[in-house]
């Protein structure tokens, strides 16, 4: 699997320090390191959130360790605040950051994020693998680039790359060097004006040098042996669909596959497009490559017709049939559509069929949602957050009035509460509470609002596969201690199996003038089953 290959690549590169916050489709990377770290001699942690994970990695890099940090797309939004200065300061021990996007939002609630755009903001190099072999190779290459140019490198995967399986060739694992040393270097590690502007100049110079490297790099590979006036530029998963389509259509077109998204090998692209009449840019989501090709065409081939999002959607994941039909249209080749072929172009319409995801049998959340719906008045505003309990927004519960990003159930509850007379009940899971709920909770106390916060504490990070979080284990941090330390007096800890207790708690707390918290604590049913064997 792509994620497994990333782990293998990091081990072959001699990674010594790994930190992550789980998020689909990146979670397996952390799960595997959690399992093997001791044996592999690698330091590993599930950090509180992605920003903290990145910062832990920065500390390790500054101490000269080879470092890997992994997260899903939205994780990079959280970590961004520290990524930008890191690009300025540069790395000491090489660092690779894995960012896994989820086109089509298979397991993402908040947006269909295309993290490639962060390259423009941060000037951090981004590589895009297409399959598990490249996941391994690019991770290793990322460490090399980082080592040579003293800059963090992002490997951007997508669901169909991270969760794709195919054969991967192994090489030897390099024994990690895990004795770090922090050698003071204030000129590099302290980003303060006026120094910071000099650092930016240095960063831009670095990128120019990496661009030269990108021009020569084998991961930007072209096959120009095909003599056609129509060419294709592609990257990531789309490359595989392009190759499949060319095979199926029996077409021979020149293809430029870009492993580097940033910095782009501009000269290579210019040479590739120079003698072409038409170019099809096949990329998932927003047309970043297409825009670049348009720009470069003005310099090298101003008559070139650049085709991309005119034929391929910006929304949803790329599919092989979209690519083959686009290639067929651009090349003027007729596609053979089977006589009996379902779908809109076929003989009949396929009815809509879907099993809604729902809470597992025995899930402690079932009773919470039924009880809340029963007890809370019609006018109550319900805020959701990120975790299994997102399912509270679908049938049969249909509860949430808003649902955004990690920790936002409390933050938004405060704003609604301050702006209206509405009572708000905000739901948040234990891992999400630690991740981003605490600052928002403090805000409700500091700026005096009175939402009722129900912490759905199932004592694990359930949705992504039961990873550790700070509240777990005997010495786990108690959520009630944090709540009390904020000076919140309206606090109850209940077991949702006792519906009466939950009902009474909600009835008692809803009319309160200050913020109140109910911690609904019951072990995740799946985890309980797992623990029993």
């Amino acid at each position, binding site marked *: 699997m792509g994620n497994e290959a990333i782990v293998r690549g990091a081990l072959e590169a001699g990674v010594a320090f790994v930190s992550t916050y789980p998020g689909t489709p990146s979670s397996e990377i952390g799960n595997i390191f959690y399992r093997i770290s001791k044996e592999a001699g690698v330091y590993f942690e599930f950090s509180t959130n992605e920003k903290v994970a990145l910062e832990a990695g920065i500390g390790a890099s500054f101490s000269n360790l080879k470092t890997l940090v992994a997260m899903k797309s939205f994780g990079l939004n959280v970590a961004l605040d520290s990524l930008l200065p890191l690009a300025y300061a540069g790395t000491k021990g090489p660092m690779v950051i894995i960012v896994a996007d989820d086109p089509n939002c298979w*397991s993402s609630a908040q947006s269909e994020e295309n993290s490639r755009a962060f390259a423009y903001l941060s000037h951090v190099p981004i590589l895009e693998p297409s399959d598990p072999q490249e996941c391994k190779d690019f991770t290793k290459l990322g460490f090399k680039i980082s080592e040579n140019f003293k800059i963090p490198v992002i490997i951007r995967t997508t669901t169909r790359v991270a969760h794709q399986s195919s054969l991967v060739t192994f090489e030897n694992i390099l024994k990690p060097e895990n004795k770090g040393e922090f050698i003071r270097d204030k000129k590099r590690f302290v980003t303060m004006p006026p120094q910071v502007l000099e650092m930016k100049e240095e960063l831009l110079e670095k990128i120019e040098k990496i661009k030269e490297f990108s021009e020569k790099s084998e991961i930007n590979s072209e096959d120009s042996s095909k003599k056609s006036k129509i060419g294709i530029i592609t990257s990531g998963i789309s490359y595989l669909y392009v190759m499949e389509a060319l095979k199926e259509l029996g077409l021979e077109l020149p293809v430029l596959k870009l492993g580097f998204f940033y910095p782009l090998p501009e000269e290579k692209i210019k040479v590739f497009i120079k003698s072409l009449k038409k170019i099809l840019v096949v990329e998932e989501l927003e047309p970043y490559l297409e825009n670049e090709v348009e720009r470069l065409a003005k310099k090298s081939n101003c008559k070139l017709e650049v085709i991309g999002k005119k034929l391929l959607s910006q929304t949803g994941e790329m599919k092989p049939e979209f690519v083959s039909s686009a290639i067929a249209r651009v090349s003027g080749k007729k596609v053979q559509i089977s006589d009996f*072929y379902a779908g809109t172009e076929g003989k009949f319409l396929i009815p809509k069929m879907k099993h809604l995801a729902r809470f597992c049998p025995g899930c402690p959340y079932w009773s919470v949602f039924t009880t809340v719906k029963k007890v809370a008045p019609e006018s109550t505003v319900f805020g959701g957050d990120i975790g299994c309990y997102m399912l509270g927004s679908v049938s049969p519960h249909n509860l949430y009035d808003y649902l955004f990003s990690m920790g936002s159930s409390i933050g938004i509850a405060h704003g609604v509460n301050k702006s209206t007379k509405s009572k708000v009940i905000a739901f948040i899971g234990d891992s999400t509470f630690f991740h981003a709920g605490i600052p928002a909770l403090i805000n409700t106390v500091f700026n005096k609002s009175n939402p009722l916060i129900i912490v759905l504490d199932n004592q694990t990070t359930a949705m992504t596969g039961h990873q550790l979080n700070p509240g777990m284990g005997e010495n786990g941090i108690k959520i009630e201690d944090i709540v009390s330390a904020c000076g919140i007096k309206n606090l109850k800890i209940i077991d949702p199996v006792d519906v009466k207790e939950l009902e009474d708690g909600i009835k008692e707390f809803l009319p309160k003038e200050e913020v109140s918290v109910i911690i609904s604590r019951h072990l995740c049913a799946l985890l309980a089953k797992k623990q029993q064997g």
Partner: protein
Amino acid sequence: MIINGVGGQGLITLLKIISEAALIEGKDVRTSELHGLSQRGGSVEVYIRFGKKIWSPLVEKGKAGLILSLEMQESINGLYFSSKDTVFLINKYQTPTFLKDFSEKEVLDNIKKLSQKAYLVPAGEICQKEFGTDVVAGIYLLGYAVFKGFMPLKSASLLSAIKNIVPEKFLELNEKAFNLAGK
């Protein structure tokens, strides 16, 4: 081929067994699966492609050779990937969708508009009767697909793959379920 069903039915194990068997036969293999929230009892489909040279991990629209549905209604979602040549192997097992449910007749009527090669097999019931459990229904269907020739892999490769993938303590049960379909 595509395997679909609902989260928790063991689709990923089947995917692993089939890919392993294809690798044993020296074929190029690519698969794609989904994790995360979609696993919680919702619709799931995974893709397995094997052959001489495979590029795409996803099955192209209209090009599936076999749709193996562990839940009856899910076979409707296989239609998108199918043509008149596609074989539908469907487990006679139904779980509510919490949206619009389809009856057995509605499911089969829809499939038969496209393909006449639809096989509805009460795998869960057979396994329950034979082994006292229906957890191996998927393996039984896998055996069914192989012994009926719906899948271009040898039963010996699949049995070796089962040995490599399935944990020791469940191995015998899985082998029995697989072989039962060939009887």
